[in-house]
């Protein structure tokens, strides 16, 4: 069952036309954004293994093309609602990497002042809603934000990310139905990485794809290769345009794969070796880089330079975070209610 899924996706993909690369500035911008996510997540993993950060982590590397492909062309005033696996989405939406690193270290200058942690990363000033660790609960919230965009007569939109597992929560059904009913400007982005924790997606639903669930709500649904950056970007561009002009929501199902386990010490024992190797060979960054070089948009040297400068940014963020101040313990008592004269 799992293998057929992979094969099915690959034949789907080869049947589709290859989406052309964008102009050079955008192409390199997207490359840099994906590399930023990869290097950030690799650094976090390392810090976690070394015991320099604590708690738990749910990592997004391997899924960079989903975050960047969907979010690259959004505006800071567009909202983005993420999940327990938020780092890629946040970085692609423009949350400061330093502020995220500080949050991971539990520092006062973290993007949530140390109160949120890995699963609640966000920065509302760039439209990144504090991420939601209750699976599926960000979906109705995103719909409410979209309703606000509509009532305030803006043409801003909401991007709502969730996993394959989340589509079996009540919030998925209630949220998408509401958004469809009122033609709200939301792009629902399901990153189907085949597993919700240790459970295979096909063991949780009778239908073959998540995209086909869109039909039940009367909205478009599309399954796309989530490791093909340009395919994601092309589909997202259409869905975003539709939302902006008041055409209503779209459900995108992006087929992808996480490199790491579900959470901190998960060794992914439930993933068959052949499935793992097939997907890991389709690394979205390598795929995109291959095209950039092949189609002569950039040279290897230029791309290496981008990687090095991002690595410096990440290293700098770690140093900055480690030398930043812890919150005062009593800070824990602030921010419970609005209206307390707080900053």
């Amino acid at each position: 069952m799992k293998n057929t899924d992979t094969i099915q996706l690959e034949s789907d993909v080869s049947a589709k036309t290859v989406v052309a690369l964008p102009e050079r500035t955008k192409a390199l911008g997207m490359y840099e954004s994906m590399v930023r996510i990869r290097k950030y997540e690799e650094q976090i993993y390392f810090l976690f293994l070394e015991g320099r950060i604590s708690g738990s982590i749910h990592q997004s590397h391997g899924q960079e093309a989903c975050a960047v492909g969907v979010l690259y062309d959004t505006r800071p005033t567009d909202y983005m609602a993420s999940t327990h696996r938020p780092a890629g989405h946040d970085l692609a939406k423009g949350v400061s990497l330093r502020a995220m690193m500080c949050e991971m270290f539990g520092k006062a200058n973290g993007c949530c002042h140390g109160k949120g942690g890995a699963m609640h990363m966000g920065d509302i000033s760039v439209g990144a809603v504090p991420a939601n660790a209750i699976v599926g609960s960000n979906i109705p919230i995103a719909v409410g934000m979209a309703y606000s965009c509509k009532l305030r007569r803006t043409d801003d939109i909401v991007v709502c990310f969730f996993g394959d597992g989340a589509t079996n929560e009540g919030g998925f059904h209630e949220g998408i139905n509401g958004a469809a009913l009122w033609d709200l400007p939301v792009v629902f982005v399901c990153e189907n990485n085949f597993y919700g924790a240790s459970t295979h997606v096909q063991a949780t639903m009778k239908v073959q794809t998540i995209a086909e669930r869109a039909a039940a709500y009367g909205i478009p649904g599309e399954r796309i290769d989530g490791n093909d950056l340009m395919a994601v970007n092309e589909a997202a561009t259409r869905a975003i345009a539709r939302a902006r002009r008041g055409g209503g929501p779209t459900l995108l199902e992006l087929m992808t794969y996480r490199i790491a386990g579900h959470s901190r010490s998960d060794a992914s024992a439930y993933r068959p070796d052949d499935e793992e190797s097939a997907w890991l060979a389709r690394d979205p960054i390598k795929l995109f880089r291959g095209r950039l070089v092949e189609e002569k948009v950039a040279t290897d040297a230029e791309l290496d330079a981008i990687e090095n400068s991002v690595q410096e940014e990440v290293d700098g963020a770690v140093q900055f975070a480690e030398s930043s101040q812890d919150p005062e313990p009593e800070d824990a008592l602030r921010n419970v209610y609005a209206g307390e004269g707080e900053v």
Partner: protein
Amino acid sequence: MPQMSIVEALNQAIAEEMARDERVFCLGEDVSDANGGYGGAFAVTRGLHGKFGPERVLNTPISEMLIVGMAVGAAMAGMRPIADVQYGDFLFCCMDQLVNQAAKMRYMSGGRVSVPMVMRAPVGATGRGAQHAQSLEGFFTHAPGLKVICPATAYDAKGLLKTAIRDDNPVLVFEHKLLYGGKRTESGALSMVGEVPAEDYTVPFGRGVVRREGKDITIVANLLMMYRAMDAAAELDEDDISCEVIDPRTLAPFDYELVIESLRKTRRLMIVHEDTYSNGWGAQLASYIAEHEIYLLDAPIKRLAAYDVPIPCAPVMEKFVIPSTARIIDAARSLMKM
């Protein structure tokens, strides 16, 4: 007697009850360990799939309302389900099924329909932020029709879970993440192992236990806080303050008598829990004692609880919010001066 962790004790209780009674089955997310699955987020149901198969160890989609609603329905129709959520906080996703349905069904039917189900949920703060941390006993002790238990030792975990499975009412089982023991490493975890008899036994609901005898202060504390109270009591001994530590073990029903009996001797009461301060079981116990036995007391009742905030993620703040051994010691010293 065999020594085991709480995870192992819970696992044994479930396995033995499933073997004893065909009506018992488990359901929840990732409860099966077939094909490399988890066997429960905290490995409590590991190995059960191999013994009982996929029908009785039912892996569900991520659908808490389905999990709990199905448990309610199956219980109403003759089964004895053990439902599971991965973190207690997710119970809020299925409050309707627990509080409107499970709790009220027996009453609404005039006693004709019962809901013999068990709802297991891990509680306690472990550096994961506000949505994976809450101790939420208070929400459920407030709902007539539900029973609420909170085993803190391997012996109680097995004996109380068996009682829960055999009980004809919906029972919520709160298990503390830092007390599970076993292989899972977690900062601040106590690797609790305790003696568990090999033969079948149960622990009755509504009976607390004195974990340590003392004559100056009665400290009532559950789950992780019970261990902190024990550590505090050991240190306070050196100050010549003798604490009696009571573990209530079940919160609904609650063993008020045991506390009152202890107060006849100590005449001072402290209550410690990791649930927030306002309106929880500690507030209920304090008000009960004030209402019925205030003349037993030589000093005001002292209550320690998590401050009334969501649990913050950063370790320095998380530590501050939850009662520490040091806070219990300070409170005991000032209580002795009153």
